[in-house]
């Protein structure tokens, strides 16, 4: 890049030299060139970059008028056509951290501009934006300004020049919860053996996979009167009309199918088949009712045990499916069932 990287610096009223807490409610404004810590920034950018403007906003103003403040900051940012936004660093200042996080998120989402901010790991702004924004890990106070700013500039240049971003520890940013494959010097087996020996000795050992965050779902209350309830059939067993008209994937499903059960007393093996890749489908293909019990449900409907069978079957394949896709499929089906006043579901899994 022959031209200098055009940088906008976002800071609060204190670092913007407007004043302390008593001036924390000032609305955002923009000024050409660097202010306060921006002088240090200018020095660190050197020949490769330039602070074209500084945007200053009061912390209280931002925190109390988030949506309004975001719009105003966006209006101030856009005309400068910056290549990079550097916000803060906010250290352990909570409202300042939230403002930096929001400004960075906004610039990336709305204008596609690369951004870097800096925060102490316990700053509430971290949780707000760590997934979307590069946050350089800083100490808790402005004493760490030079070091923090230097890392922000270094990472900012890499982003602006579209260079490869290294590991969080190497670049100094807080992990964003995004996992990437890297090449390790050793085989995985060697790392596992070393970790085990360290664990036995009571020394620090590596743990490369963090606990997943599973949702806790509270079960719905029991059905009071089954004989007046609509019951639906949902399966992840991959049962589809022969030929799989909607091309539901045999594994790693991204979608589900909805098929009418209207007028069917049972599922005919001539018309339905399982395309699931994760289990032996021989028996299901011999009698699809053993995966999706339409035959028994119709009998119960006749006998008045249940009010009615919901007229559609919802089906997908549950094998090696990304959790995110499973959630989306589940949410969509649940929403449809709710709208159809279904009060009970038989989920058959394989």
């Amino acid at each position: 890049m022959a031209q200098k990287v055009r940088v906008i610096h976002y800071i609060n009223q204190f670092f913007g030299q407007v004043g302390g807490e008593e001036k924390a409610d000032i609305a955002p404004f923009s000024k050409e060139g660097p202010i306060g810590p921006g002088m240090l920034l200018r020095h660190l950018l050197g020949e490769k970059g330039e602070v074209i403007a500084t945007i200053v906003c009061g912390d209280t103003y931002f925190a109390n008028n988030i949506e309004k403040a975001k719009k105003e900051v966006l209006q101030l940012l856009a005309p400068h056509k910056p290549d990079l936004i550097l916000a803060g660093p906010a250290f352990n200042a909570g409202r300042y951290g939230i403002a930096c996080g929001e400004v960075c998120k906004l610039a990336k989402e709305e204008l596609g501009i690369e951004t870097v901010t800096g925060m102490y790991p316990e700053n509430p702004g971290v949780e707000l934006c760590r997934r979307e924004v590069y946050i350089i890990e800083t100490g808790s106070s402005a004493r760490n300004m030079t070091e923090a700013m230097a890392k922000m500039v270094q990472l900012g240049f890499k982003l602006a020049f579209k260079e490869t971003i290294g590991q969080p520890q190497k670049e100094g940013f807080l992990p964003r919860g995004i996992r990437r494959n890297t090449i390790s010097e050793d085989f995985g087996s060697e790392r596992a053996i070393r970790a085990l020996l360290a664990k036995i000795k009571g020394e620090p050992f590596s743990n490369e996979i963090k606990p997943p965050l599973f949702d806790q779902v509270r079960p719905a209350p029991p059905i009071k009167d089954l004989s007046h309830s609509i019951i639906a059939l949902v399966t992840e067993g991959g049962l589809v009309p022969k030929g799989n008209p909607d091309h539901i994937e045999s594994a790693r499903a991204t979608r589900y199918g909805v098929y009418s059960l209207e007028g069917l007393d049972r599922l005919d093996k001539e018309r339905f088949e399982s395309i699931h890749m994760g289990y032996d489908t021989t028996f299901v293909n011999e009698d699809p009712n053993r995966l999706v019990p339409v035959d028994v449900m119709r009998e119960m409907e006749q006998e008045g045990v249940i009010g009615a069978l919901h007229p559609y079957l919802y089906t997908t394949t549950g094998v090696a499916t990304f959790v995110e896709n499973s959630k989306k499929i589940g949410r969509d089906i649940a929403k449809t069932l709710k709208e159809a006043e279904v009060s009970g579901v038989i989920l058959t899994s394989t």
Partner: protein
Amino acid sequence: MIQGQTLFVNLKELREIIAEDPRFSKVEIEIVHPGDNVRVINVLDVIEPRIKVEGGEIFPGWIGGTGIVGMGKTNVLKGVGVVEVGLMKGSQCGILDMKGPGSTLTYYSSLHHIVLITDPKPGIDQAEYSYALKMAGLKAATYLAKASVSIEPDELKVYEIPPLSRSSIKTGLPRIAYLYITECHEPLKEPFIYGDNPRRFFPTIFHPNEFMDGAMVSCLYDYSPGLKNFTYSIMNNPVIEGLYERHGRELIFVGVVVANTHLNLEEKKRSASMAAKLIRFVLGADGVLITKEGGGHPDIDLMECCEQCELLGIKSSLINCEMLSPDGTGNSMVAFSKFANCIISVGNIEEMVDLPPVERVIGGKEMAIGIKGPFDRPMRIPIRLIPNAISHVGFTHVRGEEF
């Protein structure tokens, strides 16, 4: 025939040996080398050529009888692989580049391969074809290794751990066991142990050397290459190698327990508690390294085994892949135990890899997994399609890290 460091293969003779099997309608053999501008598609398994020259059997239940394995002398052709290639409809097959970025991700690209390309005879079902393929691969592996019988090896390695009664001598070193959880169900999803399907298998103690002589071979043809252990990585299991290397210096290697991945929770729990019992009370281990095979529900087996071991006071470390979205977000695993505090990641199986165009493609005109050709073009594929770029026994340098 081997001259110096060069293996000469009589392809005509080898082809005849493989084509003897009436289950094949076509047998072709190709040779590929590291650095060749070649892409091998429809890769189903890789095997290392080995032959028994003294005492015991090799590939028991297939090539050898079901006698004792893991003792005597085994000759190994290092640097050589036998690749099984076939169009197994609907199954999960691999893509092996011998050059370029794809080749940096798997050990198998560093081998000189004898590639067996076969078609089944009409009317031969997939299960039968899978057994024919396995037999062909193992026949080729022993045929090639036979060339080494009369020559001096370049390197001699002794793998020896004393019987348990003698290893219980106090050394002050931690006693380490290895729990290998395989995944065996119906045909096309069956690693074989001594020639048999271990679907109803109870956890059993193995001598680590049994793996080296092919007591277990992979017939997991219907599994993503990133989710299964290839026969090559079972014979060269780096966990076993690593524990052997440290045996007597940093640890005492007390043996291997093999367990299967079961289909319902009760079976999973039973298997885990039986395995933990063997490791604690029979092998007397202080620590255990646990690996699994397969994708989602085997996570439950891995976690149950970890939990049962830890509850008995055995410290554990685990190896697992991550099943995230291609962009690296989501949950790495589908099951988790709070006891699992030491897990090594061998990477996100869904991360995409860009493969450049190649000069030549070997292994057919179409791919079983529905990827459309031509295959000499640049391809963007999930890393799980590269054989053992993701390896549950840690036979890979790929690792998942947080960014």
